[in-house]
């Protein structure tokens, strides 16, 4: 077990703790915050998988996941802000 694998396991555990804030959050903005935290940890984990298996296409996966998470967060926030009218 190399150093990168240990870092990958730690980042995955932190991502699960960040996702639990999305489940237990009292308000809806706490849930969005937990989703944002989980999304950033998933990007780091994808790049670390690319480092472990020594391929570069996992970084494309990370960038596309980042784009989709960003667009989703912005649209849900605007949807709540305008009360159902995007």
């Amino acid at each position: 077990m190399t150093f990168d694998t240990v870092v990958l396991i730690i980042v995955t555990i932190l991502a699960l703790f960040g996702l639990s804030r999305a489940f237990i959050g009292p308000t809806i903005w706490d849930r969005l915050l937990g989703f944002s935290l989980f999304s950033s940890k998933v990007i780091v984990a994808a790049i670390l998988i690319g480092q472990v298996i020594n391929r570069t296409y996992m970084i494309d996966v990370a960038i596309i996941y980042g784009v989709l998470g960003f667009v989703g967060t912005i649209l849900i926030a605007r949807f709540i802000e305008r009360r159902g009218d995007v």
Partner: protein
Amino acid sequence: MGQVLEWLGNIIIIIGLVFMLLGVIGIFRFKDYYARVLVSAKVDTVGFITVLIGLMLKQGFNFFSAKVLIAVVFFVITNPIGTHAVTRSAFLSGYRIKKER
């Protein structure tokens, strides 16, 4: 030289993991939404940048670290914008801090 850069990258990755751990602790420790969003907007971005810079130091100057640099630049632009949009939505919807008594 390569060995020195690898050890330096490992140390920087450990520092970034400490930042990420502080962010995850802070999101459970604080009692208010506006205190939690402070943690998620700043400490999480710092941890992301630090871990990926350590990874770029370990990898050296090649195609992999150039793509990692693109991912870092993209994330530094988008994460504060997303957090700002969520907080603006919370403020305009009428969420305020309750008074301590």
